Structures are given as structure tokens and as C-alpha cells.
């Protein structure tokens, strides 16, 4: 089987792009990735496009714009893991030696589809009684705080950290730092979560060029970053209710990725994780085994998870700071990992970064502990 590398990355700024549509955003990101790879686009053999709400054949509309019509393309919907799943499809095509150069991109124009919080599918029996996505995480936050004795103020340190990171990322939706007090005084959404505990509604796109090791040697210009694992799991149906303060789904997906990459959690130097809500970041990193159970907020308090700390988490600003255009999110995480591992992190550069991890987790289906979860490990 082929080893897999990333030789080109690109993304739009994440923001509320009222004057643009999803095709324009997707096109910008794809062209940026092709240019970053210094690649003749005719070398691209297949493409995968992750999106959630962009309608039929959205990916094909982008391909037509960038002169790539004719190659196989599949649109991939896997809730918030859609973009990451598109990358995994590219990874599998290369592992299977069907292709040598594959484009994976993700995109979403969410502001034209939603005004407030996203909700589960209306036919879901939990949506029928009034469940919202912030509500899911609010209930997990309450349970986590009760079990570990953590405070509302400690939880606010996560958006404060991620907004500080975003302020160093010119492509982030938010460019300003915030204080704990602002989080605590923001509008209540689902108690105990408030507005600044929630990722925003965003528009944006991101793209990566994924290749075989042979193609990376030929085309990579010495900047190729290895995609050492790209793992996907769906939530299991447990015959007994499980703890909501820990994530078996994230844990199982991570274990698969660590095994495939031959990497131990202790070797991971930094991570981009799916902080759709403040509490989510704690659940993710503890599920990934990067921090001990119930210990993450204390680590954030010490600065361990900040740029310059022991294990920077969400150096890009994360979903809370950079924004969360669903389909683009998982791809943008890999864009950040590649830039950090190449040493192109600019003001956000993590010193001696050699192993990075990206985690996405999305969707809600009644009776399972989560819909789709991805973990990708990249190494220099």
C-alpha cells in the first residue's frame, strides 16, 4: 500500500461572506491549494468534496470553475466530519493505489442557510422534544462540571484561549481577544453555555492535495507532510447509558489512528480538535488521551494548551475563534497542521512541531453516543 502525503493546502478566510456564494469560496480554496502545491491541475485524478447543506452536486459546480471537469468526484456528507471524511476518502484512494494525486476540499455557506443554532434533523425523536445542538453540549457540560468539580469560570478559559490564538490567524473569523468576564456576561443559549461558548455561524472553504509517496517525491518540492493515519468511526449504540463526561467514540477513533500511525498519544505535539462548544474541547482532548480525565481545564488554566505551552490545542483559533463552516472545518484543521509542520505557522508557529493531530466529531442521532468522528495524524 502507498504511504500518503499532503503536498498542497489552501483556504479562504472564515467569516460571514454575505456577498459571496459557496462556489466562489470553494473555487478560491481549491485554486489556492493547487497553487501552493505548484501543481499542474491536470495531474489531479479524482476529487472529494465535503459539505452538509450546500445542495445537490455542489462539488461539481466548483470543479467546473477550476477546469477540472471530467475527473471522478464524490460529494461527502458526514455532519461536522464531512470535510475530514473527504480527506479520508482521498487517503483511501491512494492507499488502494487507485490514484496518485487526489483533491479533497470542504466548503459551506452557512449564513445563507441558518440564522441561529443548528438543530438535529426534525424527524429525530430527540429533536421532537426540543433538543438543540448547544443543548447537547450544555447537558454534557453540566455533567462534567458536577463530576469533576470544575467551575463556570474555568470553562470560559477555553474560548478565551482560542480567541487569543485566532487573533494571530489572519484567516480566522474573529480577530479580537476576549476576557472571561465577557464569556460569562454573554447571552445565555443553553445553560450553562452562553453565546461565547458556542462556535459561530461561518462561511468558508478549505482544500488539500493528497498524493502517494512516489508522487510526493516527484511533485512535493520537499515540503510534503505525511498523512500517517486518517480514521473514521460512527457512534455505537450502547445497551446501557454511558457517561456523558467522556467520549468513547473519540477514544475509539483515536486508538485506531494511533495504531495505524504507529504513534503514541505522548508523541503528539499539538492538536486541532472539534471545539464546537467550549466544553467540547475538554471532552475531545481527554477522549484523545492527550490530557487526563477531568484534568483539562486545570491544564488550560496553567497555559499548557496555549501557544507556547506543553501541548497547544487549536493553535488556529479552533472552531470558537477561526469559525465553523461545517464542511470546511475538517479540511481547515489539516491545513493548519500542514502549515505548522512545514514551519509556516507565522506568529502561531509551534516550535519543533513534528506530530500533529486533527479531530472532528459531528452530528446527532438519538440513541448513539455521536454520529461521525474522524482523527487524522500528520507527521513531518
Amino acid at each position, binding site marked *: 500500500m502507498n504511504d500518503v502525503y499532503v503536498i498542497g493546502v489552501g483556504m479562504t478566510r472564515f467569516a460571514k461572506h454575505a456577498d459571496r456564494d459557496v462556489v466562489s469560496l470553494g473555487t478560491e480554496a481549491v485554486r489556492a491549494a493547487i497553487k501552493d502545491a505548484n501543481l499542474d491541475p491536470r495531474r489531479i485524478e479524482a476529487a472529494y468534496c465535503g459539505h452538509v447543506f450546500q445542495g445537490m452536486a455542489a462539488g461539481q459546480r466548483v470543479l467546473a470553475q477550476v477546469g477540472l471537469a471530467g475527473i471522478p468526484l464524490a460529494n461527502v456528507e458526514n455532519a461536522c466530519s464531512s470535510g475530514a471524511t473527504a480527506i479520508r476518502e482521498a487517503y483511501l484512494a491512494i492507499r488502494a493505489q487507485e490514484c496518485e494525486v487526489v483533491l479533497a476540499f470542504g466548503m459551506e455557506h452557512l449564513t445563507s442557510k441558518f440564522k441561529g443554532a443548528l438543530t438535529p434533523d426534525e424527524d429525530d425523536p430527540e429533536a421532537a422534544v426540543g433538543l438543540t445542538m448547544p443543548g447537547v453540549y450544555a447537558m454534557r457540560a453540566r455533567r462534567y462540571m458536577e463530576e469533576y468539580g470544575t467551575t463556570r469560570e474555568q470553562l470560559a478559559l477555553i474560548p478565551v484561549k482560542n480567541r487569543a490564538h485566532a487573533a494571530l490567524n489572519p484567516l480566522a473569523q474573529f480577530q479580537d481577544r476576549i476576557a472571561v468576564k465577557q464569556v460569562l456576561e454573554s447571552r445565555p443559549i443553553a*445553560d450553562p453555555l452562553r453565546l461565547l461558548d458556542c462556535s459561530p455561524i461561518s462561511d468558508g472553504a478549505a482544500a488539500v492535495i493528497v498524493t502517494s509517496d512516489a508522487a510526493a517525491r516527484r511533485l512535493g518540492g520537499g515540503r510534503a507532510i505525511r498523512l500517517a493515519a486518517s480514521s473514521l468511526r460512527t457512534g455505537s449504540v450502547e445497551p446501557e447509558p454511558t457517561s456523558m463526561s467522556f467520549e468513547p467514540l473519540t477514544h475509539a477513533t483515536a486508538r485506531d489512528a494511533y495504531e495505524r500511525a504507529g504513534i503514541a498519544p505522548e508523541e503528539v505535539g499539538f492538536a486541532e480538535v472539534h471545539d464546537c462548544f467550549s466544553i467540547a474541547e475538554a471532552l475531545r482532548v481527554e477522549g484523545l488521551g492527550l490530557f487526563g480525565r477531568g484534568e483539562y481545564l486545570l491544564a488550560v488554566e496553567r497555559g499548557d494548551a496555549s501557544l507556547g505551552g506543553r501541548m497547544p490545542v487549536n493553535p488556529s483559533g479552533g472552531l470558537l475563534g477561526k469559525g465553523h463552516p461545517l464542511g470546511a472545518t475538517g479540511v481547515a484543521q489539516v491545513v493548519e497542521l500542514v502549515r505548522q509542520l512545514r514551519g509556516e505557522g507565522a506568529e502561531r508557529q509551534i516550535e519543533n512541531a513534528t506530530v500533529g493531530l486533527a479531530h472532528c466529531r459531528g452530528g446527532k442521532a438519538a440513541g448513539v453516543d455521536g454520529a461521525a468522528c474522524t482523527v487524522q495524524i500528520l507527521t513531518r
Partner: protein
Amino acid sequence: MTTATNYASFKPAVLHVTPEGTGHLIGTRCPTCGAHFFPPRAVCSRCLTEDLQTVGLSDAGTLYTFTVIHQSTPGFQIPYVLGYVDLPEGVRVLAQIGVAAEQARIGMPLDLSIEPFGEDKDGNPMLGYRFRPARGSGAGTPAAASVKE
């Protein structure tokens, strides 16, 4: 007593209501290993037995966790308390909790309540379910209904 009789909005059908207005939640039970599931499902996730039995679930449980929803979809009147209720069969049910927000506590005993719950697309009142503080638990008073009726 309510005149609402339509509970078709709950898909899959998870609520059984008698003509007298009482009822219970519907789950499935695995005849092989005894596991219970809510919402009902076709195949046992523990032992993969098919042909699970449809069963009525207990009407009493305890509150595992909860939130107060301040922003929701159209049709729900905010704020409302929403929580996961653990039933003795080993299933966890999401439901609105008919309790004032400041009186909700993790671990509090609750009883199922069949009551008016919103409207269907034609504006007809529907029956649904909430959990309310168990009688004799001393917690809570009937909260304002949290769906537009």
C-alpha cells in the same frame, strides 16, 4: 383534561396513549439478552438478535443531566428545561422536565407525564410527554408549559 389526541409528530412512534389520556413510552427489549432500547430499534446492539419485543417503559426515573434552553427552533416557547432521564430498564430518555429551572437537580426523581405538547402542522394540539418531579419528592411545582399551545 385535554382534548389533544394527535401524537403523530413523535417519529418513530415512542409514545402510547390510552383513550383516558394515560400512557407510557415505548421501547424495545431483546428477548435473548434482556437489553432495553429507547427509541425502539430493530436489532439488539449487544447480541444482534433480531425481532426485538415492543415494550412499555417505566414511568419513573432519575435526572442524569439537564440544561435550560434559551434559544430554540420555532414552535418551542423558551426557556424550557430539557434533560436526560435514566429509567430502571437501563435506558436514557431525553425529555422536557416540568420543573422550574432553579429547582432542577441532577439525581432528582421524576415521573412521566402525558400532556399537551405543541401543535401539528395544521395547528391541532398534540399530546406529548414530559417528566415532572415525582409525587412526594417535594421538588418543584408545575412549570409553565414550554411549547406554544
